[in-house]
């Protein structure tokens, strides 16, 4: 991971055709972040489904929650890196660009998810409600991905063509791989913590 980060700044030549070539490197961070958001969101949905469909194990609920929190984290990172780039490149951090708006809405969905979770005491009820919310949102958000770009296409600032030097490609993809690794590692740690907490609670109840 550290290698890739270093490489991004040292090895990568300044990108041509950008206003501030040095800062444009942040693209190498922005894209992989966005991809991890998708992965985390799908993971959260998958575990929510498993919770409901396969015996309602609270472990699945823990996995779903962890994935959701990581999705939120990477959502924030994506938005921030995007905003930095936008500020430098076009002088304005927020532009109602369709993809930007979509990610922001996704952030709202996850924020609501955690508020919902915090409002329910009973662990099993909480898990069921949270899982249903994740799945309901999962069904409704593809419409978001379709509708928003369709109606806001003229405002899109996201480039259609990738006219970047080949070094960018290798950096972006290796960064993506690294970031996925980071995600998996964080997910694992957070999940194990949750599992421990659950085991502790169950043990207390058994006494």
């Amino acid at each position, binding site marked *: 991971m550290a290698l890739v980060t270093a490489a991004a700044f040292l090895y990568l030549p300044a990108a041509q055709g950008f206003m501030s070539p040095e800062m444009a490197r942040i693209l190498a961070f922005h894209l992989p972040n966005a991809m991890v958001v998708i992965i985390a969101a799908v993971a959260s949905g998958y575990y929510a489904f498993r919770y409901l469909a396969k015996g*309602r194990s609270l472990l699945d609920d823990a996995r779903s929650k962890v994935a959701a929190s990581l999705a939120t984290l990477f959502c924030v990172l994506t938005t921030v890196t995007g905003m930095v780039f936008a500020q430098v490149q076009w002088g304005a951090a927020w532009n109602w660009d369709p993809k930007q708006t979509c990610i922001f809405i996704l952030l709202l969905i996850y924020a609501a998810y955690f508020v919902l979770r915090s409002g329910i*005491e*009973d*662990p*099993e009820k909480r898990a069921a409600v949270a899982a249903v919310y994740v799945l309901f949102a999962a069904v409704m958000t593809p419409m978001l991905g379709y509708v928003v770009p369709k109606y806001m296409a003229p405002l899109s600032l996201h480039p259609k063509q990738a006219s970047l030097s080949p070094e960018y490609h290798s950096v972006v993809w290796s960064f993506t791989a690294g970031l996925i690794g980071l995600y998996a590692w964080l997910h694992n740690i957070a999940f194990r913590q949750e599992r421990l907490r659950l085991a502790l*609670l*169950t043990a*207390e*109840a*058994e*006494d």
Partner: protein
Amino acid sequence: MEPGNPRWKPGEVALRLEGVRKSYGARRVLAGISLEARGGEVVAVVGPNGSGKSTLVRIVAGLLRPSRGEVALTVAGGAASDAAARRARVGYASPDLALYPELTGRENLEFFATVAGKRLSTEEAERRLAAVGLAGRGNDPVSEYSSGMRQRLRLAFARGGGEAPLLLLDEPSLALDERGVALVGALVDEQRARGGLTLLATNDPRETALGDRSIVLGS
């Protein structure tokens, strides 16, 4: 009351609980309850406040999922171990069971019957109200009922048309006068005569006396 025509033969109705446990996070409410009962029996579930009587009754009714353990209700050879099937075969009344105050007594009974997929004619609704001593009050909104009357309506709700093989009564005499308590006794006898099973959760010694046996929940 209906004549004592047994609807279920001895042994056709059976309830089995095995190791039923319920915890909410770290708080344990029920610890490993096991029980076997057959049609024609009345089992009293006794214990101090907070010992989990209502929780146990709700689990048996299929309204709550146990943290561990199994509940199986068998009726004439057909097993109903999943909660939805139990909910359909149970008559349940408890103090926190509320009915719609803005609807009349009759409208309430009709609504809950229709929504369960059954048909309830006006005459039959009147009969059910009469059976719990609410004859002639069916057209009044429940908001105008006294607490004793509301309890009677709950009993009418639980009793239904007498098709429930398992009757679950949680503190049925609450808010009832002497005649009301006698009514509870009559309902229990009726269920027994039908060959059905009754579970009575209570602290009231008059109700405990109705049971053939008791199981005690500690705290």
